[in-house]
């Protein structure tokens, strides 16, 4: 049984450089496996999804980018505020995107203007499109997508991005924008949504994750799991790790072992290898402390290994499988 059975919107955030997009893409593949239909969305115009899936740049149309293990489909799109606004006008005001009013809005730069002067408005449009995909029904009144995964802005900006009611409330107390933002907010704060945080086992990302969880909780946004990315297993036997961390690595035993392997062991080589082992032990100890700190958050946590090379499509499937095995999907 997966850890998030009722969740239909998975928001993935994380400090820059932690592999947020990779995790979002892997999660989409994991959720799609076994015949499900999943939508993967990005909102920052980086085309990170297209790069990962080795696909041409994505637009506003939902495009199939991958087939999951066991026959599911992953669709993807890049949401941009201008298209989202035209879409919104079309849906709620029956304005054709190619009609005169919509064209005038574009020509006057009204969309740029509106989203510049009120960034909260841009976020309402972006999250509004995501919400629309979550609640959309296909023929037969079944949900159009089994799940939607959002590759969201980084941890430092995530609460402002999702907490749109707060952003908009200063600008519009009544009226259609307020109404729309309330509707979106209702989905974002419901049990249908989970905000997952991606981190590395390094001090700063761990601290940012802890701060991010507290901030999300303080505004009532549902915190999902913590995904620890780029994990490397400790290589040294446990006793040697402890000794090395304390600066007491058994260098004589190491020298003997190296000779046993048929290596010549001049002193610089021995000292160099001992230094590398000690560095490794310090890093492992630091990672262990990070793991403990994350454990205190009491959220489900998942670990993904550091892949030997840059992540390619094959790597994504491997990571998706690991997320399934660990119960995230």
């Amino acid at each position, binding site marked *: 049984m997966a850890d998030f059975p009722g969740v239909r919107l998975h928001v993935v955030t994380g400090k820059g*450089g932690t592999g947020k997009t990779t995790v979002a893409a892997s999660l989409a593949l994991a959720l799609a496996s076994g015949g499900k239909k999943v939508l993967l969305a990005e909102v920052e115009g980086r085309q990170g999804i297209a790069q990962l899936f080795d696909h041409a740049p994505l637009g506003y149309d939902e495009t199939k980018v991958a087939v999951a293990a066991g026959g599911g489909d992953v669709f993807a799109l890049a949401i941009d505020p201008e298209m989202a606004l035209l879409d919104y006008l079309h849906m709620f005001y029956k304005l054709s995107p190619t009609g005169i009013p919509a064209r005038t809005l574009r020509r006057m730069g009204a969309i740029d203007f509106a989203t510049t002067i009120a960034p*909260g408005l841009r976020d309402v449009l972006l999250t509004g499109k995501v919400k629309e995909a979550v609640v959309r029904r296909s023929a037969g009144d079944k949900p159009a997508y089994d799940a939607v995964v959002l590759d969201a802005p980084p941890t430092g900006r995530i609460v402002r991005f999702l907490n749109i009611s707060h952003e908009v409330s*200063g600008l519009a107390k009544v009226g259609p924008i307020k109404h729309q933002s309330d509707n979106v907010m209702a989905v974002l704060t419901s049990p249908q949504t989970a905000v997952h945080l991606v981190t590395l086992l390094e001090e700063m990302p761990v*601290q940012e994750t802890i701060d991010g969880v507290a901030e999300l909780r303080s505004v009532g946004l549902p915190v999902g799991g913590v995904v620890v990315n780029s994990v490397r297993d400790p290589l040294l036997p446990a006793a040697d790790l402890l000794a090395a961390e304390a600066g007491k690595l058994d260098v004589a035993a190491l020298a003997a072992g190296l000779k046993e392997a048929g290596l010549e062991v001049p002193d610089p080589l021995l000292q160099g290898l001992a230094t590398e082992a000690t560095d490794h032990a310090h890093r492992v100890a630091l990672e262990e402390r990070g793991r403990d700190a994350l454990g205190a958050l009491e959220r489900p946590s998942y670990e993904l290994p550091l892949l030997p090379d840059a992540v390619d499509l094959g790597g994504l499937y491997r990571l998706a499988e690991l997320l399934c095995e660990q119960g995230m999907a």
Partner: protein
Amino acid sequence: MNTAPRLDLDERLDTAKILVCCGSGGVGKTTTAAALALRAAERGRRTVVLTIDPARRLAQSMGLSELDNVPRAVAGVDTAKGGSLDAMMLDMKRTFDEIVETHAEPAKAEAILANPFYQALSSSFAGTQEYMAMEKLGQLQASGDYDLVVVDTPPTRSALDFLDAPQRLTTFLDGRMIKILMAPAKAGGKAYLKVVSVGFNVFTGVLTKIIGASVLQDVSQFVAALETMFGGFRERAQATYDLLKAPGTAFVVVAAPERDAMREAAYFVERLAEEQMPLAGLVVNRVHRSGVTSLTAERSIAAAQSLEASDGSPLAAAVLRLHADRVLLADREQRIQARFTSAHPGVALVEVAAQPGDVHDLAGLRAVGADLAGPREAAVPA
């Protein structure tokens, strides 16, 4: 393989007036800025470092505890050579408010500050942070209190955003929408009708329908109030831009030896060249090297395998695996770096070794500064 010229940062620290550290998020930009500033101060220059959203413990190491928009002296700096170090965290909204207060008459300023759109714009306009960082940079430089201003650029989606921020703000203020919304305030009803075409009635209709009449009214009030300050804004944006190109300014691009970070760094280097902005060079942070070059990864793995197969020393086998991983990582990083250097052969570069932990005290910053300045000199035998 091309080798990049070595970046001599000490020379820059001793002569530059402004150093801008830029690069994508998560590459150690803030730490680099702080370490450079500390080093400059201890080499005898009156230095201020302007940071944006530093990690808490790094901020604490410099005695910064809150956003107060005022430079504060950093305790524990070696001032023997006559230098000093101040540090401040940018308060974006406060900086914006100050500009309004400086440029508008008191009554107008008050109206602007109270307007809900101003409040939204000043705290979250995409680019406000970047613009305000540049604004503050100009102020600090003009104050005459410092020989050197080191600035850490905001953690933007793309490292290029802050260069475009002043331009974006002026484009916005010059925009057609602003002109339309201001027209009635400017010349009564007539010009209003002239500026706007047939589409406009439809347009305001739609706009009112979508955002509501009262919101539209707030917007035009805000725009009208801003009008008095337009000249000032545009001038300042231009002045800041010029300052970035002036002699005495240098950009330090910070990256990590990873594909995405180096790609961002490459874009940035190209962009600086296009804008004719002076690039000092590239700092490659978090570089892994092996001190044991005589043992290749292949040989190391083979030896580990033979130990594992014969139930030999698990310690030696693990250390050999570890060494092989490290060599392979170092190779990969070097390939990524070489790709950058082939494309940008003239760009000077310095590497900083990866540390197991983060830096959170002055001693740590000092050590990073020494690494930035160059490989530590070999100990002289007694």
